[in-house]
């Protein structure tokens, strides 16, 4: 079994904890509770017969990533950068944030996620995704569960590939 540290990051209120809960427990809670510091949980996933333990750090959201304590990112193998499709301010810093994180973790696996798909129309979603400076890896909804499992499954697959290729 290999263990990998994965960070869920992004602005506040984008649904990081809801994605975290949906992935861990398969449930969604309408109540919004802000995360203080960090919450950590483990989930084991099988990828091509290999067991991968994801140690997921759900950290408190900040408007820009340079405000997050840098030590949280140390030793992380994967980053899930989450945005809220219903709040444009949450992807306003996408380019700078990703650049900042890539400087910190040049070998990390990055997944850019547009969450809360259930809150926007198809037309609005298309328009938003086309306007982003980076292509979005996953469009998710923690509320309906759309793409959440796939997101973490693909993260585990990419981490395993990285692990095998050194």
């Amino acid at each position: 079994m290999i263990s990998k540290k994965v960070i869920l990051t992004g602005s506040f209120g984008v649904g990081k904890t809801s994605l975290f809960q949906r992935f861990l427990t398969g449930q969604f809670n309408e109540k919004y509770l802000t995360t203080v510091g960090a919450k950590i949980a483990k989930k084991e996933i099988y990828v091509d017969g290999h067991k991968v333990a994801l140690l997921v750090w759900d950290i408190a959201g900040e408007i820009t990533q340079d405000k997050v304590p840098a030590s949280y990112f140390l030793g992380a193998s994967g980053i899930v950068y989450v945005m809220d499709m219903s709040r444009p301010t949450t992807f306003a810093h996408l380019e700078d944030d990703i650049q900042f994180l890539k400087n910190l973790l040049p070998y990390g696996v990055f997944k850019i996620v547009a969450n809360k798909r259930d809150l926007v129309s198809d037309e609005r979603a298309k328009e938003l995704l086309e306007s982003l400076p980076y292509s979005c890896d996953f469009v998710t909804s923690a509320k309906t569960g759309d793409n959440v499992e796939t997101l973490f499954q693909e993260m585990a697959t990419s981490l395993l590939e990285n692990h095998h290729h050194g």
Partner: protein
Amino acid sequence: MSTKNDTSLENTTEDQMRLQHLRSILFSKELDELSELKAILDSPALLDEKMKPMLETRIETHLEGLKKQFPKEFSVIVNRMIEQKIQSSQTEIMNMLSPIIGQMVANYVRHQFQILKDSIADQLQLVASQGIWWHLRNRILGLNDADLVLSASHKSVLEEIFIIERDSGLLMASAALYPTMDRDVVAGMLTAIKAFVEDAFGRKMEELEMVQYGTYCIIIQNFHSYYVAIALKGTVSTQEKEALREAIRTFVMDTPNLQNAMQDNTVEQEVSLKLKSNFIIPQEKRTAQWVELKSKPFFN
């Protein structure tokens, strides 16, 4: 002059009288009973006398049935009502309970002090009975009599030991006295707390070395790429902490393959077993002879 109608009326009245007479003859018994029943109904005292035994039996039977059925039928409702009442009257409940809880805590503390006092008295007697060479040896070893007495009075127990990768917070090896919650998560949370404290106070050159909560403490020994966290229960003297830190340094030096524990599960298991045999002492093996423990705390 009487008409046909008058004759007919007379006949009817006569018939009725005859019928009444016939009724009184035929139903005399029933009529008596009816008037007796009417007398009972009209008199509350008589009614009470008649009904009371019957009602009592019925009520008793009903109550018996209710007692049997109540928990099944109403427990959910009653529980909900109690919960609501507690929720809405937390302050009142606390006001009511706090004197009782306070008294219980005071009694508990008094009891524990008594135990500690007795234990220290025993240890002092033991110290006093030791010869001059014993005291001299302790001075040379830098062991303080007071510390020895205190540590022996309330022996510390090493419950868990973790070796954690410094940056990622991933667990490299671990051992525990009892099965506990997921150690990977514990390692991650400890790393997050450590990072938070070190960042929050902006002291990059200083590191968290101990976390204390009640009678538990976690001693942290930092190395270049990993750190060792030791969870202890009980009072730990300064000498014991130092001895423990020294033991960790020795363990690290004697375990050159420790660095490979993250990449190789077999190495992780070997290191974990070594940690267990070196640091975790099962209850049945813990010696009561504190004099021996004090110079080699936590070890057999």
